[in-house]
């Protein structure tokens, strides 16, 4: 597919915008995207981390930025350097401590998704159930809009309002 701006290079960036329920798509090359200020921020090799975890070994600074390279989990002492070497995390809290560095990796591993949408422990606080249910409804709403099923989208929006007001339905 050719870039819609320069009509020369291959379009590698595909933008979908929905305004007032009207969907528009744009397919452009990286260079034109950069010129238009549409390029996403430089995708550091964290994006490659999962598939090339051991094969590619950039420095921590290259990988996580100068502010996070020396970060260590206060609970378990785990560092991003160890994640790069071992491929697994040190303790549950690491997800919170290294959230920004982990997000691109998590999205890459889970087909672009980064929010839980499934079982919640029965013991979990009500707020947790509400958060997860709202996430699930939001995802369904996005899908309904993508499918242009506006009737379903409206009903999901109403359901979200109910959950916001009265908590999770269980």
């Amino acid at each position, binding site marked *: 597919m050719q870039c819609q701006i320069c009509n020369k290079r291959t379009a590698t960036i595909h933008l979908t915008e929905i305004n007032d329920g009207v969907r528009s798509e744009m397919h452009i090359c990286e260079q034109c995207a950069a010129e238009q200020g549409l390029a996403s921020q430089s995708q550091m090799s964290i994006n490659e981390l*999962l598939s090339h975890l051991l094969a590619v070994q950039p420095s921590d600074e290259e990988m996580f930025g100068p502010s996070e390279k020396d970060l260590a989990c206060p609970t*378990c002492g*785990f560092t991003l350097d160890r994640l790069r070497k*071992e*491929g*697994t*995390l*040190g*303790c*549950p809290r690491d*997800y*919170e401590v290294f959230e920004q560095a*982990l997000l691109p*990796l*998590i999205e890459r*591993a*889970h*087909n*672009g*998704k*980064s*929010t*839980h*949408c*499934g*079982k*919640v*422990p*029965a*013991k*979990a606080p009500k*707020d*947790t159930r509400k*958060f*997860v249910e709202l996430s*699930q409804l939001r*995802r369904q709403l996005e899908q309904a809009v993508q499918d242009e099923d506006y009737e379903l989208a409206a009903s999901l929006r109403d359901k979200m309002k109910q959950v916001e007001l009265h908590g999770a339905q269980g």
Partner: protein
Amino acid sequence: MEMTEISHDINDWFSGSGPLADIVVSSRIRLARNLAGHRFLGNCSVEEKAEILDVLKSVLMSLDLGGEVFFVSVDKESDLTRSFLVERHLISRHHAMAAGPRGAVIAKNESFTAMVNEEDALRLQVLKSGCQLAACAERVDEIDDQIEEQVEYAFSPRFGYLTACPTNLGTGIRVSVMLHLPALKMTGQIEKCLAAAKDMNLAVRGLFGEGTEAASDLYQVSNQVSLGVSEKGIISDFENVIIPEITEYEKAARKQLLAKQADLLDDKISRAMALLQNAHLISSQEALFLLSHLRLGLNMHEHMGASTPAIERLCALRSSTARSGPCKLTIRTVNRLFMLTLPAHLQLNYGQTLDPTHRDALRAQIIRDALNPTS
């Protein structure tokens, strides 16, 4: 419990029964869980691993699992026993090879295993024969609920169940089906089919083979995405899209073999029968390869009414085992020979470790005896 109590027969999930069992050999659902307040395994001291093992072992052994269960101290068992448990899919290869205190609670009918201190503190798996994902999900969910009443799992509202590796995050679920796809292999379409599965974000690997090669034509297809999709959504994709599509491909390939390449099909089945009935040395890989063709022939006869000269001879074949006299050859007997002649099974049942040549001779003898009944 002595492993020899179960090592002389196949387990239920490999019995060749259940929905779509001519192609879907078994269904498995695994959940990964960790304990709040504990480090992940790779970052744990030996003492902490021992503590986690103690807690989870006592919780698991206190559950009502609807039948007899036994505990295996995986780190204290011999290499042979560990290999045996891997061959029966009761523990993972990773669990067998890992270091430090670890164990497994196993239902005696082998439909359920809880691995403690694998990559995650707890890995629960339910296995059933044929296509029974919904039943597996219901059972593993119910066991998970029982455990959760006694422990606090590591969970975050944003990321769901927290796992040592971010690839298992969210639901922590891994849904797998073991598929027998010999006709796709014979007709040269297997690579195309598996590539399509990989494009659907599925992991595909050959089973019982060396490396990624599936000598047995058995492939395991699993989900890779576990975050941002619900357990029900993943299972529904398998039941409504993935399994129907792959099984249709395999059925079409079987029909194609019958309609256009019956000589090829008969050649494979006849060679398999001749070699298995007469060989005096047979490697595990060769046995898996040949038994796969017997399974194909029997299933095509039973499920498609196929009747070529080689299939007719195969269906007329009588077999016997140590426990049963001569009777009609069944899928169960083929699967039994398949599992009982795997290296660790052979040695455990023989009562001592054997070098590869002795194993090949013993394997050939067991198969010959089974497929050439004397009375």
